[in-house]
């Protein structure tokens, strides 16, 4: 049977990383990691898996390849069990394989939790494998670059301190033509909420900032954006295994909101960022829950609609389908609100199947898309099941309120020749809403 | 429940008694343990040819099996040969008394285990009647 060893992909970061290792070094770091950061949870998962293979059908990689080395349990068997069996004393080449599985063949989407009768969280196990690889310095080059960027600039895309407020002011100016009174309020203390986005927005999707500003302007809400580092809510360090930087980034984010004394943070349409702010970094920082209330755009738009603050000129007529992003559905239960918003905006909604908590992942999340071009095909070919699912809906518009999902889905759409295009909720609302003078 | 953990440990003492005592009723016709007292049988009756068994086991003292009762305890001194077991051991016994099924099991299995001879498993006693 084929294993990960039969499909290794050259990556500069991984190759150089393992070049610096010896079995002894690996063992030392592994043992420290197990003693320091793993406890009963890992031990129970390692011990109780009955290897029934029920989780196979959960994973889009397996469903796309039908190759047994892609099942959730096979990923654990090719990584964590191997390490535990050898008490961490493995060949550097094994770490290369572990890294490729962990960074590029698992999206930490947690779909497999719906399949494993023992409730084993494969995503958690795989993120511990990533943590080990990070500690060993074996990380794919591209994702490591984003982690470096977080470390140096507190944002993912090397956006410099002055470029950020410049970009916001530029968008404000642009919008003045359409909305003469529009402001993107910077550093307004005591505003109702701080709006935060991921760094790719100012870098190359500025029109999303424009649209958000337009929607907030039309809705007449009290909001602000910080002009200082701490504005980026994305967090690739969380996925590279660099918990220290992950926590620094989120601490800056929470503290920025606290400095501005806002009531809450409203986050743009991104899933992984939400996971970091809502559910992950807080734990590393010693908070049971995030110290500032956090709301995802889906929920915020839902509120605006409930309050009657968004009025439409017309509804979107073409049939649409909804993609449920893992990190806000399995990660936050927003499936009903997402549907209510889409039904408010669109005439005709065709559900894909399976959907809601059971939806297939886009295969871009969990940092996989951020591993860059060397691994692009892994995630596209590894998600033909999603292509089939999309195709079966027969519609041409796909609503996906998540950046990673957009990236992944667009790649799948073009590779499999699906005649579809993706939309954010913001795209639709901006297009359909009554625009004030 | 206040019981000795290994009731069968009492039996070696009994066994010594059995072997030295004498006198037995001949029950030529008996082929299996009498089961009339049980309303319903769940297994074939346990094979037991009285005379052949005693001859093979060298049993001459009837009290080895046909014991009496004193103060709620087994009394090996009194000879109850001729009285059916079920007369004392009710099928559904009161608390503290030994019900019939347990009495049979204890009697046979207990002795066979201490003697290291004779059937001790379910299937070696409860055999379908030979045709």
């Amino acid at each position, binding site marked *: 049977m084929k294993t990960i060893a039969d499909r290794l992909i050259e990556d500069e970061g991984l190759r150089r990383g393992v070049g610096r290792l010896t079995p002894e070094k690996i063992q030392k770091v592994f043992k420290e990691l197990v003693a320091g950061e*793993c*406890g*009963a*949870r890992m*031990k*129970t*998962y390692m*011990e*109780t*898996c009955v*290897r029934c*293979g*029920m*989780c196979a*059908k*959960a994973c889009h990689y397996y469903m796309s390849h039908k190759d*047994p*080395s892609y*099942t959730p*349990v*096979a990923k654990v*068997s090719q990584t964590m069990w191997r390490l535990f069996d050898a008490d961490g004393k493995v060949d550097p080449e094994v770490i290369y394989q572990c890294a490729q599985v962990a960074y590029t063949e698992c999206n930490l989407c947690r779909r497999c*939790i*719906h*399949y*494993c*009768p*023992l*409730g084993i*969280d494969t995503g958690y196990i795989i993120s511990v494998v990533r943590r080990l690889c990070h500690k060993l310095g074996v990380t794919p080059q591209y994702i490591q670059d984003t982690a470096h960027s977080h470390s140096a600039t507190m944002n993912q895309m090397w956006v410099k301190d002055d470029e950020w407020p410049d970009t916001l002011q530029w968008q404000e100016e642009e919008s003045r033509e359409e909305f003469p009174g529009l402001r993107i309020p910077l550093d307004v203390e005591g505003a109702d909420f701080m709006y935060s986005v991921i760094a790719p927005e100012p870098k190359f999707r500025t029109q999303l900032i424009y649209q958000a500003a337009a929607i907030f302007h039309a809705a007449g809400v009290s909001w602000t954006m910080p002009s200082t580092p701490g504005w980026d809510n994305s967090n690739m360090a969380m996925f590279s295994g660099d918990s220290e930087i992950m926590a620094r980034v989120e601490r800056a984010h929470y503290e920025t909101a606290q400095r501005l004394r806002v009531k809450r943070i409203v986050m743009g349409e991104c899933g992984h960022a939400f996971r970091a702010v809502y*559910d992950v970094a807080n*734990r*590393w920082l010693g908070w*049971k*829950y995030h110290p500032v209330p956090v709301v995802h755009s889906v929920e915020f738009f839902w509120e605006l609609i409930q309050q009657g603050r968004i009025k439409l000129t017309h509804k979107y007529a073409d049939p649409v389908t909804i993609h449920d992003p893992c990190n806000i559905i399995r*990660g*936050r*239960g927003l*499936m009903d609100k997402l549907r209510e918003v889409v039904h408010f905006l669109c005439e005709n909604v065709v559900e894909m199947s399976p959907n809601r*908590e*059971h939806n297939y992942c886009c295969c871009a999340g969990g940092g996989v898309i951020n591993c860059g071009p060397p691994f692009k095909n892994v995630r596209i070919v590894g998600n033909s099941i999603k292509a089939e699912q999309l195709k079966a809906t027969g519609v041409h518009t796909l609503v996906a309120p998540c950046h990673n999902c957009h990236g992944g889905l667009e790649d799948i759409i073009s590779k499999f020749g699906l005649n579809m295009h993706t939309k954010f909720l913001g795209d639709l609302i901006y297009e359909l809403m009554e625009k004030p003078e | *429940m206040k*019981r000795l953990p290994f*009731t*069968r440990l009492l039996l070696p003492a009994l066994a010594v008694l059995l072997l030295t005592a004498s006198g037995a009723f001949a029950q030529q016709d008996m082929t299996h343990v009498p089961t009339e007292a049980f309303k319903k049988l*769940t*297994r074939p009756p346990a094979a037991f040819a009285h005379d052949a068994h005693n001859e093979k086991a060298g049993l001459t003292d009837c009290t080895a099996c046909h014991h009496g009762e004193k103060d709620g305890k087994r009394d090996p001194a009194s000879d109850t040969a001729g009285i059916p077991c079920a007369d004392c051991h009710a099928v559904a016994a009161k608390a503290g008394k030994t019900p019939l*099924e*347990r009495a049979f*099991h204890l009697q046979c*299995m*207990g002795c066979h*285990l201490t003697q*290291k001879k004779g*059937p001790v*498993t*379910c*299937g*070696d006693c409860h*055999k379908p009647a030979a045709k």
Partner: protein
Amino acid sequence: MHALYDLAVGPLAWLAFAVFILGSIYRLMSMRALALKKDAAFVAYISWPHAIRSLLHWVTPFGALGWRENPGVTIVTFLFHICLFVAPLFLMGHIVLFDTFHGWSWPALPDGVADTLSIVVVAACAYFLWRRLSVPEVRFVTRSHDWLVLALVGATFLTGVLAYHRIGDNLFMTTLHVLCGEAMLVAIPFTRLSHMLFGFFSRGYIASEFGSVRFAKDW
């Protein structure tokens, strides 16, 4: 053989039950201690109402997505586990031993029913064996440990059934059965069979996270 049988139903049986019960308590307590010491960031989220709600789905056949998507395993594993507990606990042969030597008695299943349940377990073991050999995703992850536990369970029930049907020398078969059963009991706390002890907690934990933090179902 009498001496071995005597040993097996006497001292070894005590030993096996003691190791099983005390071993299980020890494993559970030490895992709990480890969790409190090292997993505070997870223990904090434990929410019994969510855990119980999810467990109710998972103990219902086809009550969770994983069950629905794996109907064969679901049917077999439910039958297997139910019979695994019911048959030996209400087996006349077992009750008689307790009754004879300790005076403990409780209602038994009719022999024919118990026999059927036992054969179901043996058949389920055969199905698991077949899966391990020929279903690629199961075979890919199978290790020697899996053969061992499957053999322990299979051998215990198979020898039990053979003994009941008086196939082979009955004393030998029964003794073998008792020894296998004891080995299996001893193995529960210390092998993968410990999923019996920890399974409810691993599911319960993830259900707590899903229910109380993520507001999503996990079934």
